[in-house]
């Protein structure tokens, strides 16, 4: 029953996204596609984060590093003359896996707030590494000469194609994540979140499961990085600044942790608010901040919590 509700939210979100091209046409506003693509990328990143944060209770404050890894994979490969998006994705995922295995193995020695801070430490190291990497533009970053190619065609130069690719990836990855959290593996991951001592006492060593989840999560987030690089056609270390990591956490919590579709909703909501509030007032951050405080105070559990409560209301009225 609970699962049904979550899937419903996801379905609605996907349908909403699928309607964007039509809407863009109707409103004569092709820029909607650009915004939506960005939302899709962040939705993927937030969903990846939710996998460890929501299901593993591993609050990674360094997930922006994976956005950066994905994005820099595109830059570096393009400089090497490789333009295919498939290869970009592969390279980004491979690099993310390597980074996640190394840092995850160390980070998972710690718990709670210590985990938060050590993941921050690693992402800051990655950040400063790229800041002083002059060949890639250092702190300034660098534009991409073009977007990635798809099977040798430069289809993605067209915003519409990039949008469909991003939506396809989001839906695909959502299905993957959804399967993972419901699987045997996902159960163990959640169990380790609930009570690691008990898990060991029934024969599981949480470390391996948590590390695997962390690696998967990093890989998913790096896919978002590849998309963002293509969407902005520009890559800079700012993508992996700790602010971004914080924003990803905000998105997940805003949508409701441990629900996957909540992470997507959170990303959409955060970017939507930013987009609209900024249009109204120069002090949009003030209103955005008030909104966040209000959500926590009056709607615990974020979007998903709200949906659940509404459902409960409707249910009890019947």
């Amino acid at each position, binding site marked *: 029953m609970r699962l049904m509700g979550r899937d419903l939210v996801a379905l609605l979100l996907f349908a909403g996204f699928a309607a964007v091209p039509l809407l863009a046409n109707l409103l004569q506003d092709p820029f909607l596609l650009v915004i939506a693509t960005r939302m899709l990328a962040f939705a993927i990143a937030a969903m990846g984060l939710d996998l460890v944060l929501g299901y593993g209770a591993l609050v990674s404050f360094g997930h922006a590093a994976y956005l950066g890894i994905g994005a820099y994979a595109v830059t570096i490969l393009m400089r090497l003359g490789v333009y295919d998006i498939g290869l970009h994705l592969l390279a980004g995922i491979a690099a993310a896996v390597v980074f996640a295995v190394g840092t995850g193995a160390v980070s998972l020695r710690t718990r709670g707030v210590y985990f938060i801070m050590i993941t921050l430490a690693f992402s800051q190291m990655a950040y400063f590494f790229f800041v002083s990497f002059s060949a890639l533009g250092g*702190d300034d970053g660098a534009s991409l000469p073009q977007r990635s190619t798809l099977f040798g065609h430069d289809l993605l130069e067209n915003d519409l194609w990039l949008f469909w690719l991003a939506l396809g990836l989001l839906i695909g990855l959502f299905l993957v994540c959804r399967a993972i959290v419901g699987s045997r593996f996902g159960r163990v991951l959640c169990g380790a979140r609930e009570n690691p001592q008990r898990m060991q006492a029934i024969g599981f060593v949480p470390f391996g499961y948590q590390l695997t989840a962390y690696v998967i999560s990093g890989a998913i987030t790096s896919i978002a990085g590849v998309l963002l690089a293509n969407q902005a056609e*520009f890559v800079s270390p700012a993508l992996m600044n700790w602010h971004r990591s914080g924003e990803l956490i905000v998105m997940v919590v805003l949508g409701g942790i441990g629900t996957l579709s909540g992470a997507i909703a959170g990303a959409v909501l955060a970017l939507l608010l930013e987009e609209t509030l900024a249009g109204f007032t120069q002090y949009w951050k003030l209103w955005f901040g008030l909104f966040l405080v209000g959500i926590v105070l009056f709607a615990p559990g974020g979007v998903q919590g709200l949906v659940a409560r509404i459902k409960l209301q409707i249910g009890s009225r019947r």
Partner: protein
Amino acid sequence: EGVKVGLMFTLSGPAAALGEQGRNGFQLAVAQMGGLGGMPAEVVVVDDEQKPDVAANKARELVERDNVDFVVGPIFSNILMAIHKPVTDAGKFLISPNAGTSNFAGADCNPNFFVTSYQNDQSHQVMGAYAQSQGFQNVFLMAPNYQAGKDSLNGFKRSYTGGVVAEVFTPLGQLDFSAELAQIAAYQPDAVFTFMPGGMGVNLVKQYRQAGLENIPFLSAFTVDESTLPGQKDAALGFLAGANWAPDIDVPESKAFVAAYEAAYGAVPGSYAMQAYDAAQLIDSALRKVGGDMSNADALRSALEAAEFKSLRGKFAFGNNHYPIQNFYLTQAIKRDDGKYQTSIVQTIFEDYQDTYAADCKMK
């Protein structure tokens, strides 16, 4: 029928003060001229948040959705790198009122890109030339460890050939400079040259004086200016900097501008405001020249290149790379009679100075 201009400045975060100067300078000009080119002007202001990826998107939004005719901005070089492609690719004109990176001055120069400020290295070169002229033998160099910091020290060394006792790169955003100040005290150099924009500059200058180092000349660029002086106050008095303008420059239009700006915004304008003001004048002059007809891009470009407006700096012309050819000065921080602080011109260092990258520019 009017003209639509998108302003992109950093309006949030620690560097917001710079962006606000730029925005205010531009808007002041539009208000004073009653539009641009004799037409009503619609100005769309966006905040780049000092994040390149955000900026790249907002730039696209300005050209694709708001359909602006000109984009004016930004303050920071890394933002410029991010928005240059989306704006120029869309065939719109990008006018930078502050950032002027070397690549766009040289090999990557672009017909739709104009700069009303300077090439980034130039203010540093001014200080190098000054150090050279003073016959300094041991200069201590310090900058934050990022691209602009490295560029600044290189710029300085381009016109300074004396000895360098140490070249120190500090982490970006460093608060406490006591370690570096101790090194300076230990070396006792002839002078210190530094580039510490924003809060870092405020911290450094205060701590420099507190450490009792004020008898070692303090040379800088973008470290002691109207954006940082309200925080530095007396600590900065007498400190030297290189600039293309100062509020007390002997140009009547500039005097009027400074007065008007102070009246409107209650603060002394810095070069960020001045350059944005000039950007508005540049657009205005070009529009007048083409009679408000923006359909012919080539004509509009030629009109921009002509730069027929009274710059607040006095003489102003574009080089082949669309970067200015202008004078550079040595300035000094002073306290005015009314208690406010500003920089003041000490001497002219370069006249009609063009950047060194212009030769690499093959403008089509």
